């Protein structure tokens, strides 16, 4: 396989696959690297193996739709490298990728980062105990391992994903102990202001309502407006305590607790490449600054999919195709007018896919307590730094997140701040009376994923001596 390619795509989810198919159609050589063992991203995880099994049906139609996308991607002629981790991109571009314990450099003229989203970190006392997982993690276990919690499971949080997962879990014969809904009181009014724009997506709204109804029909206990959570146990989750806005408190036995408070774009790669980001007030996270094609502030680096701002799979595909069209034009395979013509239906598909998003963002915006956990909460899971320690340090000389990282090691562990970055920013902002946007985020440096010395040394085998 050549180590030169016109286009390098990072991520083989909906955006990456759509971009690859479009770029190949216009004659570009395309390399796709992805850290998963098979294409599909998170939404279509394991689709190639699962589609033919009896469990595929109960995972729903939007999951099954991934099968034809994966097949089209496999057939498009892109070089696809699964189980590969991208850890550095140098100007020019030279991208460094590790696969099977060996590192290699790939030279590309343009790059599309289609690295998707991660679940919004949700710190509370005890969230590091074995037995506490994210709802996304449980859904991946259902899709790829056909596994469900052994005992009736507690689910806490908000957003469409918990509703979808609970529906899928019931269909699979799983049992739910209760749903601790963290959506604050009074969200409906502000959310409904965005209804006119979302009217074209009534089908999606109905789907969400049908999930809620199915849960109610199944008699699942739903506790509304939960503001505080506490997981307790010796070496594993055994008890769960919660408190609601109205002051109702309870302690319940629990073996597995699944949590979810929405998703945020993976911004580590764009940040490390020096791409400008801006604070998205509606989605309460950073998003890369992009032009109408998805090009970042760094020429020839594009972001497509949920990494560009949360929009779901249906928005990810047109974003991927738009980026590929622009790159084909920039590399001279397509004239600008033809690219514009081809872009028109993609732009309209994107706009339609995003129509319901402002309503969802307003309804499920993170509750105020989310990033203000009690002092004993571990904010940095890796280095075990508490909220109390960060608060105490944050008032000594107004340090920013990077100084606090140096003082406390928060953000220095293997996850590289993916689980503590936003909490850190909010704690600093609250302690110093500044806005989260003003406080900023960790400075992200390569390697984007941990790399061993052995992997680095293996680069030598690839490059002929000068």
């Amino acid at each position, binding site marked *: 396989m050549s180590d030169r390619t016109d286009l390098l795509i990072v991520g083989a989810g909906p955006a990456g696959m759509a971009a690859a198919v479009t770029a190949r159609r216009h004659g570009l050589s395309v390399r796709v690297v992805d*850290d*998963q*063992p098979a294409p599909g991203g*998170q939404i279509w995880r*394991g689709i190639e*193996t699962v589609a033919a099994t*009896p*469990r595929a049906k109960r995972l729903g139609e939007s999951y099954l739709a991934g099968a034809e996308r994966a097949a089209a991607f496999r057939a498009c002629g892109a070089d696809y490298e699964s*189980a590969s981790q991208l850890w550095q991109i140098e100007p020019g571009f030279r991208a460094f990728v590790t696969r099977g*314990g060996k590192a290699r450099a790939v030279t590309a003229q343009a790059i599309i980062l289609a690295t998707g989203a*991660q*679940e919004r970190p949700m710190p509370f006392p005890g969230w*590091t105990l*074995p*037995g*506490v*997982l*994210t709802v*996304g*993690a*449980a859904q*991946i*276990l259902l899709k*790829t*391992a*056909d*596994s*469900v*919690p*052994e005992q009736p499971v507690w689910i806490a949080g908000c957003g469409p994903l918990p509703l979808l997962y609970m529906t899928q879990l019931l269909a*699979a*014969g799983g049992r739910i102990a209760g749903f601790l809904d963290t959506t604050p009181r009074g969200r409906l009014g502000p959310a409904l202001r965005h209804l006119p724009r979302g009217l074209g997506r009534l089908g999606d709204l109905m789907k969400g309502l049908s999930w809620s109804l199915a849960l109610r029909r199944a008699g699942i206990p739903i506790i509304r407006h939960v503001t505080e959570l506490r997981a307790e146990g010796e*070496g*594993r989750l055994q008890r769960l305590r919660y408190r609601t806005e109205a002051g109702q408190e309870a302690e319940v036995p629990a*073996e*597995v607790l699944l949590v979810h408070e929405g998703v945020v774009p*993976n911004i580590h790669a764009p940040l490390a490449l020096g791409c400008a980001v801006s604070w998205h007030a509606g989605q309460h996270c950073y998003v890369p600054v992009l032009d109408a094609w998805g090009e970042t502030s760094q020429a020839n680096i594009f972001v497509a999919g949920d990494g560009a701002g949360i929009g779901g799979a249906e928005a990810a595909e047109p974003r991927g195709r738009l980026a590929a069209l622009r790159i084909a034009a920039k590399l001279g395979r397509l004239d600008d007018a033809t690219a514009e013509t081809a872009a028109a239906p993609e732009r309209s598909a994107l706009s339609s896919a995003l129509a319901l998003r402002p309503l969802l963002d307003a309804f499920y915006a993170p509750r105020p307590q989310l990033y203000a956990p009690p002092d004993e909460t571990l904010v940095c*899971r*890796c*280095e*075990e730094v508490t909220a109390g320690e960060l608060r105490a340090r944050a008032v000594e000389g107004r340090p920013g997140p990077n100084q606090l990282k140096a003082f406390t090691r928060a953000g220095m*562990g*293997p*996850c590289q701040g*993916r*689980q503590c970055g936003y909490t850190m920013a909010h704690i600093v902002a609250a302690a110093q009376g500044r806005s989260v946007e003003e406080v900023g985020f960790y400075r992200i440096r390569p390697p984007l994923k*941990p790399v061993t010395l052995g992997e680095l040394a293996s680069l030598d085998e690839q490059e002929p001596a000068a």
Partner: protein
Amino acid sequence: MFRKLHDPGPQAVTIFIDGRPVTAELGESVAAVLLRQQEGWSRTTPVSQSPRAPYCMMGVCFECLVEIDGQGSVQSCLTPVANGMHIARQQGRRSLSA
């Protein structure tokens, strides 16, 4: 913590967790198998030696690090099982002499 809904049948393989043979299914990740064990944890932390288990299952939390076939700190949620694989739960920080 978790249970599998079907019998793997011909897709079944055997992997070893801390030396104990365990049935797994081709196509699933090592982390998924760990979560089906009586002891669902994957490692203890380098700072306080407290147990951790797979948390995100999508490669962003690094709680599922284990030793696989002699290589330390591998993300078990990104690693599909293979017949005869040896998994060791990781205890605390890695020793320099190991």
